[in-house]
């Protein structure tokens, strides 16, 4: 394992811009981090007023608000690197340019938040728990990133992330220790998330360069950390570990997406598009 990353620390966006390969590799990861947080926070926001009880409504909204704030940090880092205005990066990029993992764009259930929302709470718990744990593991690794502005952002985000993981871990464990109906629904949700979750733990086509440049640790290392944590959780709950993760519906890291993302983008940019220069 090379440790070349310890040799070079890039302190500013200006410095990063001087090295074309470094900048291209760095922006690749930043788009993944930003787009993942952005779309999942959006999906979470659709739950507003629909969560199982009032306290959860407060908690889930707060988590989504934090997560949208995290996406904003990453989009701002991209703006600093000359990628364009952060608001535009968040709102205006077409689906094909988005790098979020496919499972994060999936609708919450049938119907939509305005008409007959039959959202699946088990799916929300499983998706958010798996994702937030993966995100925490990435953030821990990013604290020593060779790109200093990203390392600083990771320290900040990680403190908020602590509460998110704790929240979803509680739901996950309690529902899987509850009655047979809850357990059955949860296991169905686990299966559904599992077959596409590999994409969340993927760093895309530049994974190797990202590790070599010390921007983040190796993809395989991060993935193994997630897997071993999850194996311990499954063991604690006395549930069979599901085995290999999949990326069944494609690779969001290279712009492959479902129509769920198109629909979401259409809705979420509706207001922004009416006036892109005003201060919202």
């Amino acid at each position, binding site marked *: 394992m090379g440790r070349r990353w310890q040799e070079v620390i890039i302190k500013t966006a200006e410095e990063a811009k001087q090295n074309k390969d470094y900048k291209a590799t760095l922006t690749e990861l930043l788009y993944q981090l930003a787009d993942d947080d952005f779309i999942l926070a959006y999906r979470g926001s659709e739950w507003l007023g629909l969560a199982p009880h009032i*306290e959860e409504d*407060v*908690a889930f*909204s*707060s*988590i989504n*608000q*934090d*997560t*949208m*704030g*995290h996406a*904003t*940090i990453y989009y701002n880092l991209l703006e600093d690197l000359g990628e364009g205005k952060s608001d535009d990066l968040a709102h205006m990029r077409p689906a094909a340019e988005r790098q979020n993992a496919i499972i994060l764009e999936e609708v919450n259930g049938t119907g939509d938040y305005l008409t007959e929302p039959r959202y699946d709470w088990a799916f929300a718990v499983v998706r958010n728990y798996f994702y937030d744990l993966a995100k925490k593991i990435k953030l821990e690794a990013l604290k020593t990133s060779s790109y200093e502005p990203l390392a*600083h*952002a990771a*320290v*900040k*985000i*990680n*403190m*908020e992330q*602590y*509460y998110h993981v*704790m*929240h979803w871990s509680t739901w996950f464990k309690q529902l899987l220790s509850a009655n047979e109906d809850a357990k059955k629904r949860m296991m169905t949700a686990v299966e559904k998330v599992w077959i596409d979750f590999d994409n969340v733990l993927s760093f895309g086509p530049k994974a190797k360069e990202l590790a070599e440049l010390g921007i983040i640790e190796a993809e395989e290392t991060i993935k193994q950390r997630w897997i071993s944590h999850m194996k311990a959780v499954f063991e604690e709950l006395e549930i069979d570990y599901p085995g290999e993760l999949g990326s069944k519906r494609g690779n969001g890291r290279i712009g492959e997406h479902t129509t769920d993302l198109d629909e979401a983008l259409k809705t979420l940019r509706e207001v922004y598009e009416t006036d892109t220069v005003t*201060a919202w």
Partner: protein
Amino acid sequence: MPSNLEQLHQDVLNALETVKDPEIDSVSVGDLGMIEDVSIVDNKAFIKVLPTFMGCPALEIIQQNIEKAVGNVEGIDETTVEFIHHPPWTSDRVSKEGRERLKEFGIAPPPEKWNPDGKYEIECPYCTSLYTTVDNIFGPTACRSILYCKSCKNPFEAMKPVFTDM
């Protein structure tokens, strides 16, 4: 006798004292430990501010209020507010004064230290009892939790502990 620049610096700090958290109006942004740096060059004030939580919707209002308050200081022609996240804001940055003011507002201040096991005791801001329970880690704003005092039977809020080693 302080020089003109020292006096101007002090005037700016005094002006910042008047800028309150829009969601907790007994506490100034200085009391909360959000002001990282104040510098004045050629009658221009540069103020570096640390956001408490990144998704906090009050940031823009805080920025405007700082610009307004500092802009009113005689001798300041221009005010620039920059939000930075290094060093990160941590809850132990709340000043002693700030901790008292939070209590006045019915919000328990955050613990001064972080236990690695995540356990901490919260004193009821009304009756000082430690016989309290957390109803919801998450509250009406990103930085607050909802609690209940089993002694005086009052619901109250607490500022979330935020430390780098979480």
